[in-house]
C-alpha cells in the first residue's frame, strides 16, 4: 500500500490553562490519501478545529502537541522547525477559515493579497503576479475579475470573500487543503456555490481536502470519508452513506437523530431516552368563529431607511392563535427587520400591524414599553449569549420583565421565576450564575424563560437555534414545541434553516429582498414549491439521507 498524503498517529494536543493542562485532542489516528475529501464532524468542543490547527502547527501559544506524529508525505511535521513549516504552509498545505472577511487584510486590495500569497514561495514580477492573480479569480468564478482585483475586502460580499480565500489557498497549488467551517455564516445558496467550487477545484487538481464542519448534511454531500469526533476522540469513521444510514456509535446515532431532515418530526429529534420527554399532543383548536380577527395581522408592512434602502417592501400575512408561522429567507431578505417591527422595537415606514384586531402600529416603538401589548408580544433572540446582560444572573434576567411589566417583587417574583425556570427545564441551582458561567443550551433556556415569563400570546423567535449545536438545538426545539402546545402560544419562527422551519411551522412565508415570494402551508410549500426562488433555496440545502 502506498504511503497516504497525510497520516496522523496518536495525536494529542494539550492546552495549558489556569486550571492545569487540558487535553483537547486525546490521541487520534487518521489517514488521508491524496485526492480525497475527508469530513471531520462534531459539535463545539469536540476538538475538530484543534486537530486542524495542530496539523498546520498554527495552534496558539497555550496549546502544544503533547503526543503522537503528523506525517505529511512520510515526513513528521509535528516537531518541524518554523523554517520547514514556512516552506510547507501555502505551498503544500493551505487552510481556509470560517470568517473569510476577518481572514483577509482589510487595507490591502484583493489583487495585492493574492500576489503576496503567490510570491511567498516563488519570485514573480508585479505584472506576472497580477496576471496570475487574475487567473486565480477566474478559477474561483468571480464575476468581473479585472475589477475585483483592485477591490478591498469590505467591498465584496461574504461569499466572494470566501472565494478569494479559496483562490489564495490554491495559489501555490498545495496538495492538502484544510477548510475549517468554510461556509458557516453564509446563506444556503452561497454555501452551495462555495462548496461546489471547492469540490470541483480540488478534484481537478488532485488535492486532498479536510472539511471541518458541524453540518452532517454538508459532510455527507461532499466527502468520501467522514469521521465523527466527540470530546477529543474519533468515535466513528465510515463512508457517509453507511455512517448516516446505519450509525454505529451511540454519539453518532444521537447526532444523526438530532439533525433535522425534510422528513423528521420534532418528536423524534432527541433519540437519547435519557433526555427524552414526551411532548403533549397537539391541542385541538376550534375553528375561530367567522369575523374573529386573527391574533396578528400584518398589512402591507414597509420599512425604508433614510439612505433610500428599502429593507421591507410591502409584506402582508397573519398568524392565528396557537399557530406557528415560519419566516424564511437569506440574509438581507428583511426577516429580522419584520420581526423587530412586529415586536415594536423599531417603527415601520408604512403599513398596519393589528394584534387581536387592535392596531398597534400607531404606537411608536419608543413608547411601546408602556403599552399593555408589550407583554403580549415577546421575542427570543438569535445568539443566546449576546442577548443576556453580562451583569445579570440567570435569575435577574428572567425576573427583569416580571419586575417591569408585571410589577412583581419579593416572594411573588421569586415564585414566578422558579416556575418559569422549571418550565424551560433550567435547574434552580443555576439561577445564581452569570451568562459566562452557563453553557449555550442553558443560556438559550434563560432567553426562552425570560420571553415566556410574562405569558405572552405571540412569541417571535429570531433564529432561536442558529448559534447552538445540533443536539442542543434538538432539545431547544422540543422545548419550544412543548411550550406552544401547552400554552397555546403563537410563533413567528424566523430562520434560514428550511428543515427546521418545515418541522416547526404549519405555514411558511418565503422572503426575498424584502418581499414575499411565496406563502402557504409548509407541507405543500416544501413538497411542491411554486416559485423558482423557493426551489433554488430547497435545492441548496445539503441532505444526508439521500447521500450516495
Amino acid at each position, binding site marked *: 500500500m502506498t504511503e497516504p498524503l497525510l497520516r496522523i498517529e496518536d495525536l494529542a494536543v494539550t492546552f495549558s490553562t489556569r486550571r492545569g493542562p487540558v487535553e483537547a485532542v486525546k490521541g487520534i489516528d487518521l489517514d488521508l490519501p491524496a485526492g480525497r475529501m475527508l469530513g471531520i464532524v462534531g459539535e463545539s468542543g469536540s476538538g475538530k478545529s484543534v486537530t486542524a490547527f495542530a496539523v498546520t502547527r498554527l495552534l496558539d501559544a497555550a496549546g502544544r502537541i503533547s503526543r503522537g506524529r503528523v506525517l505529511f508525505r512520510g515526513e513528521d511535521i509535528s516537531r518541524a522547525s518554523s523554517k520547514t513549516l514556512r516552506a510547507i504552509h501555502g505551498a503544500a498545505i493551505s487552510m481556509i477559515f470560517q470568517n473569510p472577511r476577518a481572514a483577509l487584510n482589510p487595507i490591502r486590495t484583493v489583487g495585492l493579497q493574492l500576489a503576496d500569497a503567490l510570491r511567498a514561495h516563488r519570485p514573480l514580477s508585479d505584472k506576472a503576479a497580477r496576471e496570475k492573480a487574475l487567473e486565480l479569480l477566474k478559477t474561483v468564478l468571480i464575476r468581473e475579475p479585472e475589477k475585483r482585483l483592485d477591490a478591498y475586502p469590505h467591498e465584496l460580499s461574504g461569499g466572494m470573500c470566501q472565494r478569494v480565500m479559496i483562490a489564495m489557498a490554491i495559489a501555490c497549488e498545495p496538495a492538502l487543503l484544510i477548510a475549517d467551517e468554510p461556509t458557516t455564516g453564509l446563506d444556503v445558496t452561497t454555501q452551495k456555490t462555495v462548496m461546489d467550487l471547492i469540490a470541483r477545484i480540488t478534484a481537478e487538481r488532485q488535492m486532498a481536502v479536510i472539511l471541518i464542519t458541524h453540518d452532517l448534511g454538508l459532510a455527507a454531500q461532499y466527502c468520501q470519508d467522514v469521521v465523527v469526533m466527540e470530546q477529543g476522540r474519533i468515535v466513528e469513521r465510515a463512508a457517509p452513506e453507511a455512517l448516516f444510514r446505519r450509525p454505529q456509535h451511540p454519539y453518532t446515532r444521537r447526532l444523526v437523530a438530532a439533525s433535522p431532515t425534510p422528513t423528521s418530526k420534532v418528536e423524534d429529534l432527541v433519540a437519547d431516552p435519557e433526555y427524552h420527554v414526551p411532548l403533549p399532543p397537539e391541542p385541538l383548536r376550534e375553528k375561530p368563529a367567522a369575523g374573529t380577527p386573527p391574533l396578528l395581522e400584518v398589512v402591507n408592512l414597509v420599512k425604508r431607511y433614510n439612505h433610500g434602502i428599502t429593507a421591507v417592501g410591502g409584506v402582508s400575512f397573519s398568524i392565528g392563535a396557537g399557530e406557528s408561522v415560519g419566516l424564511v429567507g437569506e440574509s438581507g431578505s428583511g426577516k429580522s427587520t419584520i420581526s423587530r417591527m412586529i415586536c415594536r422595537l423599531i417603527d415601520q415606514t408604512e403599513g398596519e400591524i393589528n394584534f387581536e384586531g387592535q392596531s398597534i402600529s400607531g404606537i411608536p416603538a419608543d413608547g411601546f414599553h408602556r403599552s399593555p401589548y408589550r407583554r403580549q408580544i415577546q421575542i427570543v*433572540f*438569535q445568539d443566546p449569549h449576546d442577548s443576556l446582560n453580562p451583569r445579570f444572573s440567570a435569575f435577574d434576567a428572567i425576573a427583569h420583565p416580571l419586575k417591569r411589566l408585571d410589577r412583581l417583587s419579593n416572594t411573588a417574583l421569586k415564585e414566578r421565576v422558579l416556575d418559569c425556570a422549571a418550565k424551560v427545564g433550567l435547574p434552580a441551582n443555576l439561577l445564581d450564575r452569570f451568562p459566562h458561567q452557563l453553557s449555550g443550551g442553558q443560556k438559550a433556556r434563560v432567553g426562552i424563560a425570560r420571553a415566556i415569563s410574562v405569558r405572552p400570546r405571540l412569541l417571535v423567535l429570531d433564529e432561536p437555534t442558529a448559534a447552538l449545536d445540533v443536539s442542543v438545538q434538538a432539545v431547544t426545539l422540543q422545548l419550544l414545541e412543548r411550550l406552544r402546545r401547552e400554552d397555546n402560544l403563537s410563533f413567528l419562527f424566523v430562520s434560514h434553516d428550511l428543515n427546521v422551519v418545515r418541522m416547526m411551522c404549519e405555514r411558511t412565508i418565503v422572503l426575498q429582498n424584502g418581499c414575499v415570494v411565496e406563502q402557504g402551508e409548509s407541507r405543500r410549500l416544501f413538497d411542491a414549491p411554486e416559485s423558482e426562488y423557493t426551489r433554488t433555496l430547497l435545492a441548496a440545502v445539503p441532505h444526508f439521507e439521500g447521500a450516495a
Partner: protein
Amino acid sequence: MSSATLKHAAFVLRGNPLTAIAAFATALLVVLAIIGPAIVPYDPTASDVAHALEAPTAAHWFGTDQLGRDVFSRVIVAARLDLAIAASAVVLSFALGAVIGSICGYTGGRVDRAVGRFVDVLMAFPLFVLAMAMVAALGNRVENIVIATALINLPFYIRFARAEVNVRRNAGWVEAARACGDSHLSVVLRFLLPNILPAMAVQISLNLGWAILNAAGLSFIGLGVKPPTPEWGIMVAEGARFISTGKWWLVAFPGLALMFCVLCFNLLGDGLRDILDPRMRT
C-alpha cells in the same frame, strides 16, 4: 462582585504583585488623609522662627520651613486636601461624562454630533491654561479648582463612555431589555452604564493621578489654595525660593509625596485593567 471576580482578582494579584502593593499604598494614603491631622507630631501651621530652615533631624523628620513649621506634619496633613480636590473633581467629571457620553453613544445623530464638537473645542485648548483661566475668572477658591479640574477631565470621560456604549448599543441584551418593557432612558442608565463601569474604573484611577498634579499645579502658580494652608503645590512653590541655597527638603518631600500618589494611582489603574479585562480571563 461575584466570587468568580474575586478569584480572578486574586489570580491577577498573584501574577502582578505590584498591583497589590499599589492597592495597599493607596489604602494607606486614604487612611493618612483621614486620620493625618490627628496623628501628626506638630501643628502644621504653627510657626517656630527659632527653628526655621532646619535640615531633617530626629525631631523634625522632613526638616522645617522658613517659618519653622514642621515639613513632615505639613506633608501629611496636605494629603487630605489634595486627595479631596482630586477625588471630587474626578467624581464630578466621571458622573457627568459617563451620563452625557452614554446618551451620545446610544442615541447618535444630532445630539451626538453637537456634544462631539463641544468636546473637540474643549480639547483644542491647552487644558492647563484653560483651568488657570477658569480659576482666575471664577475666583481663587477650592470649589473652583475642583470645577476647573473636573471640566478639563470631562472630555475624556465623554469620549470614553461614548465609545464604550457605542459598541454595546446593538447588543442583543439591549434589544431584549426593551422587549422586557424598558424605555430608552432606562436601558442607558440601568443596563449600559453598569456594563461600562469596570472600564471606566480604570480611567478613574489613571485620571486621579493627573487630577492631583493639576490641582497642585494650580496652587503652585498661585491660583487656588492660599498659604498658609498646607498643600503640596504651595509647599513646592514656597520651597523653590530656598532651593538655590541648598535647602532641598522644602521641595523634595512634598514633591515626593505627589510622585508617590500619582505612581500609586497609575499602577492601580494598570492592575485594574488587567483584573477587569474579560479577555484576560481564561
